[in-house]
């Protein structure tokens, strides 16, 4: 029996085999969608770059060399150099670490928070539902960027506070999804079975409801990544996110603003990095949605 047969077995003999088989099927389906493959490659490249940045970057991200300042793109400096003589290509590579950190931390904070709030609201219903969803709706009807700006203003500029501010503005959408999902199987028989066996509400929500919400959550989080990257870059651009000399892409664009007329590459190059990575997450998210949630994909 080959690995492939084992993965695609119709009657898996262990839970691990079933899980691996499911992952394998999703991967196969994703591979058939060219845009999703492009997206996956971009996201993988981002991850690999972030990990390997110290080894693949040709120059240091922060080391200054004033004799090389504002050089146009060339073989030595693929994206040129900035006003302190730093190699922009190396800085963009190191910047992927910051972008990846922001995106991961926002996802790790906001998704579980929204998931739990939504699932609890949906499972218990009644006044719990009304209270939690009331708060969610208030946050949902606020302009996200403005809210994030105001939070950073109060917390003080910096990358950690930017992450907190973005997470605060992203969780409500996840709570809505989790609630909608929970409502669809709250009254189904397998939940009733667990209830009759004496399963506590905590156990039902944690072990039986949350796992079922994860696939729609993964789709939504991947699709939201582009927005998170743009917001983080925007905060960086305004000087409220990562502080210099950190090579954050938005902050780099902001530094290049002064030279945009003559040394266009300083501001333009980090922008391309933002666009490519955001597009990658969009492609991957679209592909995942088509595979994991075909019903939603049809009428997009």
């Amino acid at each position, binding site marked *: 029996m080959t690995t492939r047969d084992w993965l695609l077995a119709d009657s898996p003999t262990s839970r691990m085999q079933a899980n691996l088989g499911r992952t394998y099927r999703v991967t196969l389906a994703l591979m058939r969608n060219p845009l999703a493959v492009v997206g996956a490659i971009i996201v993988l490249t981002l991850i690999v770059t972030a990990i390997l940045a110290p080894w693949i970057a040709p120059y240091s991200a922060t080391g200054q060399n004033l004799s090389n300042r504002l050089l146009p793109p060339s073989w030595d400096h693929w994206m040129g150099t900035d006003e302190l003589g730093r190699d922009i290509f190396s800085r963009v590579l190191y910047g992927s670490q910051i972008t990846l950190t922001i995106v991961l931390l926002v996802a790790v904070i906001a998704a579980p928070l929204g998931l739990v709030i939504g699932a609890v609201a949906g499972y218990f219903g009644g006044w719990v539902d009304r209270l939690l969803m*009331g*708060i969610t*709706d*208030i*946050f949902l*009807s*606020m*302009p*996200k*960027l*403005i*809210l994030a*700006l*105001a*939070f*950073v*203003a*109060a*917390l003080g500029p910096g990358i950690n506070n930017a992450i907190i501010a973005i997470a605060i503005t992203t969780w409500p959408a996840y709570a809505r999804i989790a609630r909608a999902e929970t409502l669809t199987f709250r009254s189904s028989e397998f939940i009733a079975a667990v209830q009759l066996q004496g399963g506590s509400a905590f156990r039902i929500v944690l072990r039986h409801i949350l796992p079922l919400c994860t696939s729609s959550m993964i789709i939504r989080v991947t699709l939201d990544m*582009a*927005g998170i990257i*743009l917001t983080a*870059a*925007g905060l960086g*651009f*305004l*000087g*409220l996110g990562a502080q210099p000399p950190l090579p954050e892409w*938005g902050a780099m*664009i902001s530094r*290049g*603003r002064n030279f*945009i*007329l003559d040394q*266009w590459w300083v*501001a*333009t190059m980090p*922008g391309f990095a*933002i*666009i490519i990575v*955001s*597009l990658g997450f*969009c492609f991957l998210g679209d592909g995942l949605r088509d595979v994991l949630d075909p019903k939603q994909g049809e*009428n*997009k």
Partner: protein
Amino acid sequence: MSLEPQANLRQPGWAARGVGSRRVWRAANAIFWFIVTIALTFLGLLAITFFIGRVIPIDPVLSVVGDRATTQVYEAARQAMGLDRPLIVQFFSYVGDVISGNLGNSISTGRPVIVDLGRFFPATLEMATLGILIGVGLGVPMGVIAAAKQGSWIDQVIRVVGLLGYSVPAFWLGLVGLALFYARWRLVGGPGRLDIFYEGLVPSITGMILIDSIIAGNMDVFKNAVWHLVLPASILGFFSLAYIGRMTRSFMLDQLSQEFVTTARVKGVPERVVIWRHAFYPIRIQLITVIGLSYAGLLEGSVMIETVFSWPGIGNYLTTALLNADMNAVLGATLVIGAVFIFINKISDVLYRVLDPRAR
């Protein structure tokens, strides 16, 4: 309560009156709940700005007077801000202040924040309105054509623009636009609303230069204002075009796959009529919601664009205040943008319900 219908029964013509009053009752009910939800949402917005302004900062007094203030000044400010009172009392006095239009003074301009906001808001409104006009004017027809001719070049354009709208940073596009269209090709005006020698030529009546210059009959100022407005408004228009075009396309695809469309085609109705009369007509109500959302989004998106274009609007005011740690101004601008955002959202929601017979 229970006796009333019986009393009605005996009167002639009760049925007609009953239906009429039921409709009025329903409308009144809808308006009542609309006001309640909007009031609760505003209260929520106030709670958030209150939380941001008074609870998060470790010492709100310090953020107002600065760290070089003497003890007397500090104590006086603390008393004046009422920080010795319980939090809930502080919140209600804050709500009272906001309702009576008192948002405090701005540190950087020295004027009351509400006056500043009134002065800066028209510039934002002008730009966002022009942006949404571009977005609707191009996005809706492009979306319809993209759906009608799936796979055509315009369909591809809508797809690419839709994706870029999600992944291009607005401030970056603004900078690149300035570098190309202003610095290199001189096709449009640079940052700001007017060239320096047109400044102050027309009296400010509405605060929107396009309208003010028409009122004053000064066409030179009007042309110059358009010259400056065209690039930032087009960039905002691009983002709303991306969203509106994509949504129009998907609504149209939904309609075109319906059986009544096939029926119309089989009957030999011309394709143009099928698309615009049969398929487009029903989606115009859904589009109102999309356009409303997009308009509200532009008011928010203008924050970045205004910063890049030194546009003296509310977004620029907000970012300047952020950098000066001018909390009163930040919270005031957040409140105003948030309130307008919520209001437009709710209005488009209500319009949808009023206009769409299925949602009634």
